[in-house]
């Protein structure tokens, strides 16, 4: 054994667990004494943690359902595959169906709004076709208004900041900036003015316009992003995926047409 000040702690742990030979223990004791450490004090009352009984109450939400394929479907699939192979095998080469070019194919519109009604409910006319990778999640984000941390409380989870300039996204014609927060696999986003969270809190006009858009998008559940994000964090963190975020983002973009209307209403209200 070559005991040094860099490794004596590891050897000491072995000693305390009875894993050192008598010779090794003697060598360790000599080393510790030479370091002016109190051997008796080091070896007394060595504490161990006792594991408490703690139950994780949301096990069911973690579980997944198995997709059970009935036997008759398997048999039918196998038969169909076998039939297809047989058919192709027997088909004369010149009679094989032509493969069409992509450009010849008629695009099939893929609805990107989740079938579950709990997420952002968008009117059908605002379904964008520009982002087909968005997939409805098994468990939609359920926003509730009960837990609402302040936007400022989200700051600690920020690991990267992304700014997306969105001219015309808000009615005041200023560029629109988004802060993106990443926590584990989830993205959270919030609009900011002047890249400053506190400014957002203070900028009532800004919030008011966004709020109207959000109220519309979330069927009256949320009137600010802090609420939207906050409930996403506490209620369905693991479900608020990048796809869902993109969807919310795009939904928000599509709300632009309503912003002029929202702005007018807001102005009328405040002019009164």
């Amino acid at each position: 054994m070559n005991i040094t000040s860099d490794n004596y702690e590891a050897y000491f742990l072995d000693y305390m667990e009875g894993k050192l030979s008598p010779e090794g223990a003697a060598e360790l004791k000599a080393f510790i004494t030479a370091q002016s450490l109190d051997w008796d004090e080091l070896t007394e009352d060595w504490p161990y943690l006792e594991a408490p009984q703690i139950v994780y109450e949301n096990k069911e939400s973690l579980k997944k359902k198995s997709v059970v394929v009935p036997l008759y479907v398997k048999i039918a699939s196998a038969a169909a595959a076998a039939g297809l192979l047989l058919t192709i095998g027997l088909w004369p080469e010149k009679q094989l169906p032509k493969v069409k070019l992509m450009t010849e194919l008629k695009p099939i519109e893929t609805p990107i709004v989740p079938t579950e009604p709990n997420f952002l409910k968008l009117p059908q006319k605002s379904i964008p076709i520009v982002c087909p990778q968005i997939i409805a999640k098994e468990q939609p984000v359920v926003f509730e208004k009960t837990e609402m941390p302040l936007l400022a409380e989200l700051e600690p989870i920020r690991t990267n900041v992304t700014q997306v300039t969105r001219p015309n996204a808000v009615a005041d014609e200023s560029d629109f900036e988004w802060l993106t927060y990443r926590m584990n696999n989830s993205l959270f986003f919030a609009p900011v003015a002047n890249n400053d969270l506190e400014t957002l809190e203070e900028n009532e006009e800004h919030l008011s316009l966004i709020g109207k858009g959000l109220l519309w998008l979330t069927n009256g559940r949320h009137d600010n992003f802090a609420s939207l994000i906050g409930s996403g964090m506490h209620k369905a963190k693991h479900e608020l995926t990048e796809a869902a975020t993109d969807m919310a983002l795009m939904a928000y973009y599509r709300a632009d047409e309503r912003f002029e209307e929202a702005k007018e209403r807001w102005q009328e209200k405040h002019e009164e």
Partner: protein
Amino acid sequence: MNTEQYNRCVEQYADRLFRFAFSSLRNREQAEDVVQESFARVWEKLKTVDYAKAKSYLFTTAHHAMIDEVRLHQHLTSLESYPIDELKSTPNPYLDVNDILHKVLATLPEMQRNALLLRDYEGYSYHEIGDITGMSEAQVKINIFRARTALKNKLKSIDNLIDIEP
């Protein structure tokens, strides 16, 4: 691993994973995040994660997620001062030693804390803890030694502060 085995993992390890995360983070919501994150990762890698190694995979993911959580919430969790100060201000002679140990545990550096929890709660070997935390076996031992020493010293200092009548 298949879906059935995944669900079995949830039954077998969710409590333990939550206990590990909660004991280290001392924050229920963050601990729940860690559990959800860990199982989400396993689900994503279902085809490649061997059922026999699922527990290690879960604890490894949880360990890294916890380090992220701690770093991201550093300003919220002033772990260095909170528990001891609390104990000093409200001395309770009937406080269980294990409770005190867990409070003091929160004051330790995260690597010491997690290594000790994996050792004492889950009974992992030093080698296994090294695999989970990315440390060498010697580093694991040193961290656990320092954790136990710190716990012992802080228990002693609390004993000195709390005047327990015989």
